[in-house]
């Protein structure tokens, strides 16, 4: 399809599924029904894409993509025409100050800011740091309070590197946000980023002599719903937790999952008590339990979890899903999507009740994000 035809076609579509892989980004588009999908890509062929965001605040329709070339380093690329053209070539957008002694390895997360600060975007990177843009992703500066944190020297890299992979915003309080780092744990600021306190009470660190340290946990991902931001759900390196007080305390809610090891966790777009996870058998055998590909869902804030497997392979499925490989859209009947390390992309247009294969031979999938064009 010619570029302009593809672009025009995509503008008529309502739903985007944005897939980052080890060898480029793919943009899937569909209408509200989400039955038929068009696959476009790869964008940035040969480059790894660990982070994507779609930002349509302030009248924009902007894709922000964290790309990583094995040779030439990492940067953020922008598109204001849904991938028809991309920013660049230009200077590396995210750069550590020389005084830090650090160099950017990877952009792990891109998070548009609160609705009432429509030009703010955050990025979580490796080595662990938080960057902020005040011009919708054009230029970036490190959040100094975290860059210079007194714990930094004691943060240890996990298997994926020392990455800041999760950013959680309080939608109504500009002073409060939280981040998660592997392996450092969950940190929250209540003063707009000037100071950050570890908030890991009750979260296990099975790989340390002290199983409940102040910090040092290997938090894999944290999610919440904007309507109840203080209620957080955390998938740990062993352990599935909930907090009802912005991380001041955590309770184990692994009630009915086959394993409490895993990476991906995602809140439902409309119900703060509904959350999806994809358990992994163990840290030493990182495939779905029993080689059965199942998404688990709670609808009661973790009191119980049930399997969703209609349409998913239930035998010989030696699959795993990375921390950003699970996403939801914002349609009234929510779409749920996830991608595996073997390059299979699955989607549901009915809250996860039934599943279809959207693509079955992509490169290994690093992240899955969504956008609903015109949604606010």
């Amino acid at each position: 399809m010619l570029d302009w035809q593809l672009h025009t076609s995509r503008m008529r579509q309502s739903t985007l599924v944005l897939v980052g892989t080890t060898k480029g980004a793919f943009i899937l588009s569909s209408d509200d029904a989400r039955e038929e999908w068009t696959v476009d890509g790869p964008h940035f062929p040969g480059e790894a894409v660990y982070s994507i965001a779609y930002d349509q605040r302030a009248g924009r329709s902007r894709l922000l993509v964290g790309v990583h070339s094995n040779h030439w380093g990492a940067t953020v690329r922008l598109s204001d025409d849904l991938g028809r053209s991309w920013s660049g070539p230009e200077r590396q957008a995210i750069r550590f100050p020389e005084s830090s002694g650090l160099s950017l390895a990877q952009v792990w997360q891109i998070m548009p800011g609160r609705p009432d600060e429509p030009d703010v975007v955050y990025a979580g990177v490796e080595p662990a740091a938080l960057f902020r843009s005040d011009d919708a992703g054009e230029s970036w500066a490190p959040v100094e309070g975290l860059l210079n944190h007194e714990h930094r020297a004691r943060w240890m890299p996990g298997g994926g590197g020392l990455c800041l992979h999760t950013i959680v915003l309080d939608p109504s309080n500009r002073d409060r946000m939280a981040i998660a780092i592997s392996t450092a744990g969950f940190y929250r600021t209540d003063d707009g980023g000037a100071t950050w306190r570890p908030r890991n009470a009750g979260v296990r660190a099975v790989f340390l002599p002290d199983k409940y340290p102040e910090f040092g946990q290997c938090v894999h991902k944290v999610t919440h719903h904007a309507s109840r931001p203080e209620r957080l759900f955390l998938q740990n390196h062993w352990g599935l937790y909930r907090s009802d007080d912005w991380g001041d305390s955590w309770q184990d809610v692994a009630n009915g999952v086959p394993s409490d090891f895993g990476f991906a966790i995602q809140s439902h777009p409309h119900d703060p008590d509904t959350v999806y996870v994809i358990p992994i058998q163990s840290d030493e055998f990182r495939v779905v339990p029993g080689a059965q590909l199942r998404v688990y869902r709670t609808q009661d804030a973790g009191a119980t979890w049930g399997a969703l497997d209609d349409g998913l392979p239930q035998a010989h499925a030696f699959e795993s899903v990375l921390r950003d490989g699970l996403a939801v859209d914002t349609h009234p009947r929510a779409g749920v999507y996830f991608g595996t390390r073997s390059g299979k992309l699955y989607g549901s247009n009915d809250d996860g009740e039934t599943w279809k294969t959207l693509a079955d031979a992509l490169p290994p999938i690093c992240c899955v994000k969504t956008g609903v064009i015109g949604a606010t």
Partner: protein
Amino acid sequence: MAVSVVLPRALTPYAHGAGTVQLDASCATVREALGQVAARWPALVDRVLTEQGELRRHVNIFVGDESIAFLDGLSTAVDEGTTITIVPAVSGG
């Protein structure tokens, strides 16, 4: 002509399509040569050096036919007429 810096195809967009950057001013080392390139094409050198001024792990630089990994690194001396070649290392997956 003082020093020529030959670019791999992947980096030519960062130099407005040029495959070679000619440096008119004299430079004593590879680091100085890259500094002159950066003055003209800063985005190009972002891809070659980290924020700390270190050569990226999967990038090789040759002075003449020899890799600077086997010479003095970025401190390798360059002479009048030297050709510096930037090459992506053999890596990937």
